């Protein structure tokens, strides 16, 4: 779960990383108030879950509270990078002399957290990091040792700190790792990490992503006003919202995570790579996916039934494909039960409505018996997902 900048900064403050004075607000009047408290020039930053805000007009300066109110009013009325801006962060404008980069993420190859420190930060950091000699230092973190003081200071030195700066910047390095540990973050990035005219170091921006699988134990987040949410790059459609509700019916298995598309072929698929294969195959044979969704972890029959009803409720859907790779921990018979119940509840006769199953795996014999009883065409594991896709696309046409 990606956090907004202001949320990331709340966590940063919690572990002792200095951030500029400021507050998140959701109205121009409150922006004026906060700017008045800060005194002096402020920066108004759109709170969206995307980078590149500066270039898109999502970061603007204001010299007094009146201007902060005006800027906020304009920002809340517009879209930044095609996102509606619902809140802004009003912060003290800093007198920056240096911009650096500091980040921690997971190194998938070494199976460890990795610290990245760059002498150049700011909006172009990704492009800069690709260039040879870009001045980026990398340090893998041993999970049993963490980030000892000397390692933190080494990175601080790499970033150009000397004397007292070594301690101050070293502390930020250690504390960023503490943030990752404390809040189960998979990414924590300070970009830019700035040095101001008075020699202090602050996190001018802060991007944090919390590991979705750890959110259940991150009780402190809610007490800090940070609530679990699903982010997909745009506001969810009604169908997607309902899909998320279905998945919340109970904790058993996944049957939801719906993404709506403008197509005619409803899909019940298993998520991940196999789903992309199904998408490609459907397109190859002239169909158009109406949705993405995920089933897995042995969801209940009821969840599958509700999911089926939902995706078949989309106008323009002509056919249904239930296609997965070999299921090991999801039972085929339970999938068949749920899908058939969903179809019947929608008033669709499985013998007449174009539907295909290619769901081999656990309890498949029972599943095939159910499908046989309702006259549903199915492919077993000797046939590919591609064949099932070809079949259903032809079915819908005839």
């Amino acid at each position, binding site marked *: 779960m990606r956090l907004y900048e202001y949320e990331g900064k709340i966590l940063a403050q919690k572990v002792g990383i200095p951030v500029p004075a400021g507050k998140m607000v959701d109205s121009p009047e409150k922006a004026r108030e906060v700017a008045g408290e800060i005194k002096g020039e402020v920066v108004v930053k759109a709170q969206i879950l995307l980078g590149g805000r500066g270039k898109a007009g999502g970061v603007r300066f204001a010299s007094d509270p009146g201007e902060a109110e005006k800027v906020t009013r304009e920002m809340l009325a517009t879209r930044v990078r095609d996102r509606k801006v619902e809140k802004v962060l009003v912060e003290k404008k800093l007198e920056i002399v240096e911009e650096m980069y500091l980040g921690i993420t997971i190194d998938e190859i070494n199976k460890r957290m990795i610290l990245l420190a760059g002498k150049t930060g700011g909006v172009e950091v990704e492009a800069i990091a690709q260039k040879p000699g870009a001045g980026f230092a990398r340090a893998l973190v041993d999970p049993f040792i963490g980030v000892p003081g000397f390692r933190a200071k080494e990175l601080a030195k790499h970033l150009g700190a000397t004397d007292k700066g070594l301690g101050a910047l070293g502390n930020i390095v250690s504390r960023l790792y503490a943030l990752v540990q404390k809040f189960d973050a998979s990414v924590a990035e300070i970009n830019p990490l700035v040095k101001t005219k008075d020699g202090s170091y602050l996190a001018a921006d802060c991007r944090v992503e919390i590991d979705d699988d750890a959110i259940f134990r991150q009780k402190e987040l809610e007490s800090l006003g940070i609530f679990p949410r699903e982010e997909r790059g745009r506001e969810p459609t009604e169908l997607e919202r309902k899909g998320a509700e279905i998945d919340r019916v109970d904790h058993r298995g996944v049957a939801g995570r719906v993404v709506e598309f403008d197509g005619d072929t409803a899909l019940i698929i298993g998520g991940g790579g196999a789903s992309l294969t199904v998408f490609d195959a459907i397109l190859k044979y002239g169909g158009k996916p109406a949705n993405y969704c995920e089933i897995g972890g042995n969801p209940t*029959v*009821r969840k599958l039934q509700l999911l089926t009803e939902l995706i078949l409720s989309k106008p323009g859907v002509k056919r249904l494909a239930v296609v997965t790779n070999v299921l090991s921990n999801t039972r085929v018979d339970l999938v068949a*039960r749920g899908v058939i119940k969903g179809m*019947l509840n929608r008033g669709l006769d499985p013998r007449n409505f174009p539907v295909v199953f290619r769901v081999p795996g656990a309890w498949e014999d029972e599943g095939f018996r159910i499908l046989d009883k309702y006259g549903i065409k199915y492919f077993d594991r000797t046939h590919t997902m591609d064949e099932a896709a070809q079949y259903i696309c032809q079915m819908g046409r005839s």
Partner: protein
Amino acid sequence: MGLFVTVKLNPEECQDGCKSCLDVCPVGIFRIEGGKVKVVADNEDECTFCELCLERCGQKLVEIIKNY
């Protein structure tokens, strides 16, 4: 009766009311109503055939029928 599974249990015959079936069922097929164990019709199709209820019922009063 579920579309795919029917779970039968005669509450009148259930003498000791041990509620073992209710305790072991992982998908909530049984409930107590008026002091007696009853089958939740809405949940019958959730039955996974784990047969824990059959195993635990000392009086062998539970019957599971596949409707396919």
